[in-house]
């Protein structure tokens, strides 16, 4: 059964979704140089999500640059696919269908393991994928709990799964960043099927 276009999605999905804000985004004509700097990429002025966040351009700009280095700086450390896995796992656990859709798609694209990623979405964070992915998912979940439950036993499990110090730090940042992103995406608007 597929979801009806233009309605909130019924389940976690790798399909592309729209997102509609519950507060008014900044209108294009209100953008000053400071807002353009906050948007970082001019193309983000087409996104209602970023145009809503542009009401406070300074934090938006710093947040975007944090995001980019955590996920796109792939010099050593955790492979991009597993950074996306940590983002998807945190999003699945917190219940952010929009964020999970974007980062599940990226995880599939970079890992070529679309079915495993779909199983994470369908069955949730307790599903079995393989020892290395299970360790990344479990650690992302432990860190996403409030209070966070992440400690030396998660580090030991990640080491056992083959992650070095920098890779573990990348996983920590990927999951932690989605505890930021999920809360904005969830609380300021809602996803709609395309």
């Amino acid at each position, binding site marked *: 059964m597929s979801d009806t276009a233009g309605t*909130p*999605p*019924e*389940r*976690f999905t790798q399909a592309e979704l729209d997102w509609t804000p*519950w*507060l*008014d985004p900044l209108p294009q004509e209100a953008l000053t140089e400071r807002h353009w700097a906050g948007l970082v990429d001019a193309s983000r002025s087409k996104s209602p999500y970023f145009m*809503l*966040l542009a*009401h*406070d351009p*300074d*934090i*938006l700009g*710093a*947040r975007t*640059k*944090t995001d980019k*280095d*955590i996920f796109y*700086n792939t010099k*050593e*450390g955790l492979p991009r696919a597993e950074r996306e896995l940590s983002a998807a796992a945190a999003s699945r*656990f*917190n*219940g*952010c269908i929009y964020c999970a859709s974007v980062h599940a798609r990226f995880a599939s694209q970079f890992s070529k393991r679309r079915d495993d990623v779909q199983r994470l979405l369908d069955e*949730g964070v307790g599903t079995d994928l393989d020892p290395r992915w299970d360790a990344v998912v479990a650690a992302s979940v432990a*860190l*996403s*709990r*409030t*209070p*966070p439950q*992440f*400690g*030396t036993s*998660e*580090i*030991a499990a990640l*080491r056992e799964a083959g992650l070095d*110090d*920098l890779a*573990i*730090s*990348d996983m*920590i*940042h990927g999951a*932690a960043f989605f*505890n*930021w*992103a*999920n*809360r*904005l995406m*969830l*609380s*300021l608007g*809602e996803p709609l099927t395309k």
Partner: protein
Amino acid sequence: MPQSPPKDVIDHLVGIEPGSRLDTIRAARQQARDNAQASYDALFSPDDESGMSLVERRAVAAFVAGLHRQPEAAVVYYADEFAASAPAGLAAAVAAEVARGAAEGPTGRFPQAPLAGESTAAPSFAIAGEGRAALGERLAAALEHAHFLVFHPREAEPARLQRLVAAGWSTPGIVTLSQLVSFLCFQLRVVVGLRALAASPAS
């Protein structure tokens, strides 16, 4: 007297010394490190306080760090930052709400039928009586919203934003409040994670 602010709050709360193993790890993602700090600066040394005052920012931060309970260094840091600038009585009022608001997350109902089996009961948190009088309408509404964002954000709905609007919050103010709570959910977890990494033997 408040101490001079640390150059990098995450380094400070993890206890990272220049040249240490964790310093090298963070230096490999220097843009993320600098911009996590730039995010903190944008929120806590704002150029424009019209949407959310500095006292409100520090009050909400003390509340959010307190609700997380971990890492303890951050709970103390944000409580001290707030206490150093808060009017008399306000820090005690926020501390009382931290104690009253203790819970675990993430929880909450999934409205979607296929996910209903994963729904769990979310903590309810409303500030009434003396607490509301001490905090004022704006800050009481902000703490109620922060409690929801920390523990059960999947129960989002437009009515929650309307409650903030009714308490006097503008759209830019709501954006800043949402960023501040959500940023702390990130920053506190980075500190927890890096502290665990620092406490483990090197790979």
